[in-house]
């Protein structure tokens, strides 16, 4: 495989290489080497490009084509152009679902990250044996199936469930967690945070352990307290980890549909119908254009999520750590 040195012609006096003699001028040699290199690069990229083409690009193109044909599985599809984009973009349900997805993400992502940061900081202070026990404990919810968690939390939120029993003990209950439009998303967000806590905490902990101890020690010697050390040293050096967790968490939370589906079935009155659940409901509704509508809504959501991710990356640029 050619090395990067080959891109700049080496002009060592008295040591003209056989390559150069064969290839003619150094310029020509360099361009042929470039070609060689490009070919290698393309060859190595080819499998990924082919796979992306088959599993991402072609389905997208095909979905776009399908979104312009109204039809069910029994009649020949009819070309309707971009009508369905109009239907989706004028459907109040679609915007409502975007709001719900945004609201859920705003609770789950920062909330989950804050709790994970506190937990990780706490685990970092523990001894080896205790830390490994805590790591296992924190990671446990991750291996719980979201379906089982949903059933559990449905029972917890029931009229005579654990949550209302606890509220009853302190004379605050009972609350209608799943039947009240303003409470349902926070209620669904609790298992959402709980299920994601394990991985977030471990990544956060890895980031914390990467911060050189000497920085924190010298800051401590200069009289910086815990909060100052966290604000001026820990958080800036965790920036990339936080950015990664924020973007992936935001996109994942925005796309959550299993928890609201199983805990509240998107209700009451679509108050917990997240964008994916909205699309899913459109797909499984017994309307003659369910397929076209749900494909179109998916494409629109794809654009929305892409835009959100791009915005986040623009606003918060990742940087190399100072000592990297």
């Amino acid at each position: 495989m050619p090395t990067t040195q080959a891109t700049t012609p080496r002009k060592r006096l008295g040591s003209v290489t056989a390559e150069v003699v064969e290839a003619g001028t150094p310029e020509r040699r360099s361009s042929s080497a470039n070609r060689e290199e490009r070919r290698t690069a393309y060859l190595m990229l080819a499998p990924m490009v082919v796979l992306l083409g088959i599993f991402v690009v072609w389905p997208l193109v095909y979905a776009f084509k399908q979104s312009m044909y109204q039809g069910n599985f029994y009649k020949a599809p009819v070309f309707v152009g971009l009508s369905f984009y109009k239907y989706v973009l004028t459907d109040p349900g679609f915007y409502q679902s975007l709001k719900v997805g945004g609201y859920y993400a705003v609770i789950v992502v920062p909330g989950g990250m804050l709790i994970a940061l506190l937990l990780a900081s706490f685990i970092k202070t523990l001894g080896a044996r205790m830390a490994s026990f805590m790591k296992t404990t924190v990671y446990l919810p991750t291996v719980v199936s979201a379906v089982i968690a949903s059933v559990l939390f449905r029972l917890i939120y029931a009229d005579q469930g654990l949550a209302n029993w606890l509220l009853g003990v302190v004379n605050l209950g009972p609350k209608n967690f799943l039947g009240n439009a303003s409470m349902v998303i926070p209620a669904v967000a609790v298992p959402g945070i709980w299920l994601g806590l394990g991985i977030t905490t471990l990544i956060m902990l890895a980031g914390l352990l990467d911060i050189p101890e000497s920085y924190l020690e010298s800051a401590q010697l200069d009289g910086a307290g815990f909060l100052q050390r966290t604000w001026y040293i820990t958080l800036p050096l965790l920036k990339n980890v936080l950015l990664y967790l924020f973007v992936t968490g935001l996109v994942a939370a925005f796309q959550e549909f299993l928890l609201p589906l199983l805990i509240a079935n998107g209700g009451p009155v679509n108050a917990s119908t997240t964008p994916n659940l909205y699309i899913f409901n459109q797909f499984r509704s017994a309307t003659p254009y369910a397929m076209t509508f749900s494909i179109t809504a998916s494409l629109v959501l794809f654009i929305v999520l892409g835009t959100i991710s791009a915005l986040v990356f623009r606003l918060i640029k990742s940087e190399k750590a100072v000592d990297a």
Partner: protein
Amino acid sequence: MRRGKGLTALTLAVAGAVTLAACGTGSSGGSGTTAAAGGGVGTACASPTTVTFWQQKFEDYQQAWYKKYVDQFNSSQTCVKVDYKVVPADTWTQKLQAAQAAGNQPDVVTTNYGNIKPGVAQGQFAALDDYLPASALADIKPNVAPFVTEKGKHWGYPMLVEPSAVLYINSDMAKAAGLDPASPPKSWKDLVDWSTKLTSGNVKGITIASVATELGWSSWGLQYNSCGHFPITDDWASARATDSCFADVVNLYKTLYQNKLMPQNPKVGYTDAAPFESGEVAMMVNGSWALGAIKKDKPDLLAKTVVAALPTKDGGTGETTATLGGWTLTLDAKSKHPKEAAAFISYLAAGDPNIMADFFKQAGYSKYTTRTSVDKAIAANDPSTTQDANMKTISDDIVAHGIAEPVYPWDISLAMGTAIESGMKGTAPVDAALKTANDSINSTIQKQQLKGTAPQS
């Protein structure tokens, strides 16, 4: 939509179901019908043709009944093998849509009456007239035939009829609250009063549908009772959900919910009788099938259960408060083996009347027949069925005045269900919720080009 016409037809239904008078054109189903009744399918072949049958999951005894007779059909001949699958109700549509998208949809499925005509409009079903013997089609009671007939052909074979909303009262609890179960609530006001008196501590006065998908269909009878029409014009040209009579329906649900006379977060769906069986509620609104569930699950509760027609808005009697739902077997338009699949339909639903008679026996006679010959078989096998007081109430006071399920697309019913849920749970003022439903119905009319497409049968 179908005022008057439905009533006359259903009065006939009861005459058929209860007094067992032969109101049909007679039966020729007879006993001993074999798979060969499907026409052109033999009983001995070298290798069987496989047809797939998906059944929506119902009460446990139904699954047992289906399995028994699918096995019996498979062992009765060697030409057709039925591959039988039970699909839970809440995943039914997406599973079916996914199978249709992949081109491997089942040959035969259970379809409810409400989905027959929209399905015909979409070209989803094959007409059974080409495959079933004329005698099997003639056996269908004349009042049920319109539910499955469109353009002069039969698109599903009806199996049963059941009212979707019946009031169940726990007589012990009613007496303890100083109420007389022998004179159940008549008006919506009475219903609220009863629910209030019966609510104490953790026991709620009543349980009724509370989510849009269930309100969408279980409130049809109340909508019709309040307005005398459904929330769309008869020619499906425009919505009329903002009529104040629909607000009355929403307000009934709202009162029950906001005053905490019903569970705020029900653990189970509308069709499940569990809260009534376990004594968590004193009254229950549920379909007639719940009576069968009580007979199976808690026979000792049966003596304490009083059944009544759901109250009417102003307390009048002899009015519609329930629609008649029910299930059919349909043949997929894209089935590769329509003849063999129809042979199975013919065997199970349209053949030996004793097969369906066994079904009604398993159901504790909480559902109603659709075939004259099955009535005769029940009368011969189990004459005691006419003695049950609760059954008589359902037949005389509910089924007799019931109307067929509306056949407009489900989106319209769901829009109304959403409006009711929205009003009852206070996510929007009642009028605003109905306005939203009205807009949604008009949007459906426009998107699905419904204007002027209402079936005329």
